[in-house]
């Protein structure tokens, strides 16, 4: 039981990070109907911005950790949002009315461009940071196995939950959210009714990138390092999570992220670590066979 609880914690934390990235995929898909393959690299950029901000803050003599974390979070979100906005403006908007595959190809190109940019600008080596948030609690101990919950794990999960609640509210209750949903249904009609489609799509990319920045920062805090190619694997996993949860659905992305995180962890815990990715993707296939639109996805309705 103690062992199971520990693995549950491991899985939920990993899943939260996947989920945060997955939200970006799902929001963009919901509105523009394209897979933003550069999103994983936006997440990587977020990690780097967080790292650079952290180092600057420490070098000017800040030592109070909560203030540092808050400032890093804000700067990372702002800077990365700028990247997300630029990517949409440069690579996707000019191709929006082109054939369907064009934006996807330009997204793949953007992904290479961003990761190579980080490699050239920041070097090809891993960038480690010393543990910033330390400490934790021993929840309970049974037959010699102490279940540990570290502070950073608490921060990751709470941040994820708060952000998820915030963005669900944003999409379902605010003016911007209404515009987004309108664009999702029919862009031409939304434009006719006075919704600024370009602006709404830009905002979607900005929000997705800001969330990716949070994920990047959490990743930096949790694992203690960033590198220029980390966006690729994380991006693939998060994309899988988005599809599993039902692409286009916000809670679905989170649920998908948690599922992937838990499957990987539990498989490693009780079977073999070697096949954890095989397990995650097999379950994805099984789910898609029985629920083609994912766990929480709405069935595609033919628009008339």
């Amino acid at each position: 039981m103690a062992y199971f609880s520990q693995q549950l914690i491991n899985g939920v934390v990993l899943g939260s990070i996947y989920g945060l990235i997955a939200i970006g995929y799902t929001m963009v898909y919901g509105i523009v109907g394209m897979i933003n393959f550069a999103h994983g690299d936006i997440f990587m950029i977020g990690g780097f911005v967080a790292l650079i901000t952290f180092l600057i803050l420490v070098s000017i003599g800040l030592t109070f950790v909560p203030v540092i974390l808050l400032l890093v979070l804000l700067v990372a979100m702002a800077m990365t949002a700028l990247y997300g906005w630029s990517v949409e403006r440069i690579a996707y908007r000019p191709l929006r009315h082109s054939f369907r595959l064009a934006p996807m190809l330009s997204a793949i190109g953007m992904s290479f461009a961003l990761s190579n940019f980080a490699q050239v600008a920041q070097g090809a080596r891993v960038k480690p940071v010393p543990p910033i948030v330390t400490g934790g609690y021993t929840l309970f101990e049974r037959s010699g196995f102490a279940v540990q919950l570290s502070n950073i794990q608490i921060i990751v999960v709470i941040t994820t939950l708060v952000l998820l609640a915030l963005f669900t509210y944003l999409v379902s209750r605010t003016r911007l959210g209404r515009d987004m949903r309108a664009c999702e249904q029919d862009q031409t009609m939304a434009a006719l009714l006075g919704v600024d489609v370009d602006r709404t799509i830009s905002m979607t990319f900005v929000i997705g990138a800001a969330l990716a920045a949070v994920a990047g920062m959490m990743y930096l805090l949790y694992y203690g390092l960033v590198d220029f190619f980390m966006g690729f694997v994380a991006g693939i996993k998060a994309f899988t999570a988005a599809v599993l949860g039902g692409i286009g659905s916000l809670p679905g992305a989170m649920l998908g992220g948690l599922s992937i995180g838990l499957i990987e962890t539990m498989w490693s815990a009780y079977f073999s670590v070697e096949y954890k990715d095989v397990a995650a993707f097999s379950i994805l296939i099984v789910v898609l066979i029985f629920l083609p639109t994912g766990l929480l996805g709405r069935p595609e309705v033919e628009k008339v």
Partner: protein
Amino acid sequence: MKPLKLIGLTLAALLALSAQAIAQDIPVAVAGPMTGGESAFGRQMKNGAELAVTDINAAGGVLGKKLSLLVGDDVCDPKQARSVAEKLSGNKVPFVAGHFCSSSSIPASEVYAESNVLQITPASTNPLFTERKLWNVLRVCGRDDQQGLVAADYIKKNYAGKNVAILNDKTTYGKGLADETKKALNAAGFKEKLFESYNKGDKDFNAIVSRLKSETIDLVYVGGYHQESGLIVRQMRAQGLKTVLMAGDALNDKEFAAITGADGEGTLFTFGPDPRNKPTAKAIVEKFKAKGIDPEGYTLYTYATMQLWSQAVAKVGSTDPKKVVEAIKAGEWDTVIGKLGFDAKGDIKAIDYVVYKWDAKGNYAEITKQGS
């Protein structure tokens, strides 16, 4: 159009000239992971090769010609290694010092063998590198079957009756080393409690760590590179696990300590006796230090590779790889890492591995004496 043509011609002429200028030199190459996760080691190799070439040129070069150094980047990727090897062969290098990852050195060696290039690896320890009876391969470091023996010996002595787990990263190097260590341990009647593998590039090891914790593992042996080992150590300490991590020669870079911080204290790895402490290396270590470089890990091995080749070429009087290989295998050579002699396969005759330990300040030191 006319001035444009003229400019074009001038440029072409200039190019021809510079190609001519390079042709005056003997091109030699160092190849390894200059970028990517293992780039710390690529840097070690490049540092070693650069200073060696500078020193050799300062002493008059080889056969009256200067050496010019080409650098190949294989990112520790087997496919990339092949294309780097093809490119270097196309540049007509007679000799390559490299590569680092065994999974790169092995496929590259086949290209070199076909294109008549001598390959001396300063760092690839997988036995297969020299076991395939290629004419053109030599290595100046040890082999994983010996490394595994030393590791197993240490574990047997210090962890008798305790729980040991073995992990590997499924790479040629990591899996090979883990298998050799397991073989040596099992031969001594020591059974590991867990044998698992992970993917190179993984960042989240929490599931494995919890598993080590529930199996009350005292020592985990990792066949893998420093980045993953560093993360495993960090995540073990975060879960309150005091298990000691032991690994192979891929832990001999300060970047490991940068990842673990003080948590790396007590981590063990096997490597050749520190070449920096050898009396033959003193003057060259000083030279590196003057340039602000700590010649750790495989830096001096790469330096020695260059020395070895240039001495052999001077003796043979030609850069013909086939003759140079014969000469190297026949003789004994004074290098910065000591006197080297080779067997028919291309491995060095006297190999000894020792166990090192990391301390809390991010330095490592030998803890076993040679042969113990």
